């Protein structure tokens, strides 16, 4: 799954450790999500989107699915 978590987090000027703490995960997990090495659950996706004041479609999408 592709994502723009790092891009939007940087734009929102939120530090990795702060976002991780807000959504209740470790920095390592957030880093894996940002690199696309771990697919988070829908609930976690929602929480991340909410913490970054954005929506799911902006943050996550499936590679090859033409929805953008």
């Amino acid at each position: 799954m592709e994502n723009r978590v790092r891009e939007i987090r940087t734009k929102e000027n939120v530090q990795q450790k702060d976002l991780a703490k807000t959504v209740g995960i470790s920095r390592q997990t957030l880093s894996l999500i940002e690199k696309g090495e771990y697919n988070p659950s829908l609930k976690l996706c929602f929480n991340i989107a909410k913490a970054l004041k954005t929506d799911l479609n902006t943050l996550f999408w499936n590679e090859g699915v033409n929805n953008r």
Partner: protein
Amino acid sequence: MKEPLFIKLVKNFYGISKPFDEFAKDVINDAGNKIAIWLMVYLIISAYALMVLISWFSPMNVVSGLIIADTFVYFVASAYIGRIIRKNKLDRYEFDNEEERKIYSKRFIISRLFMSVLILLLAMYPISTWFRYMGMYQSIWPIFIGYFTGNLVAIYMQYCRLFKR
């Protein structure tokens, strides 16, 4: 959010130092399921093997063999889960400054020492009783001292890996 007692127990048992998030849960569930399958296979095979062996050899020797085999399997399972934890870096502490590093390292040493002493105390009576029964009384203290020294070395090596820069 306060962690439930069970989560604290799981984290302490596996040596996880980070928040028990869904990634950690996935890793532990996967490894735990594999271990559970292998343990069940081992249990059923050892039960059938015991039935046969006990009719061939002295029950005392068979039970002694089972104790050694169980201990060996326990160490293999521990080593496997330890490898998975290290591979996925779940035992790494996330600290930002020297103060946090000191707090975490102190907490790490105290908890590991506490667990070592607790396991040693729990194992002392059954192991010494068994060794005495087997007529190997002289080997009891070297084994306990060896176990504790080995544990101290392991704790120090873990400390170096996790906290020394």
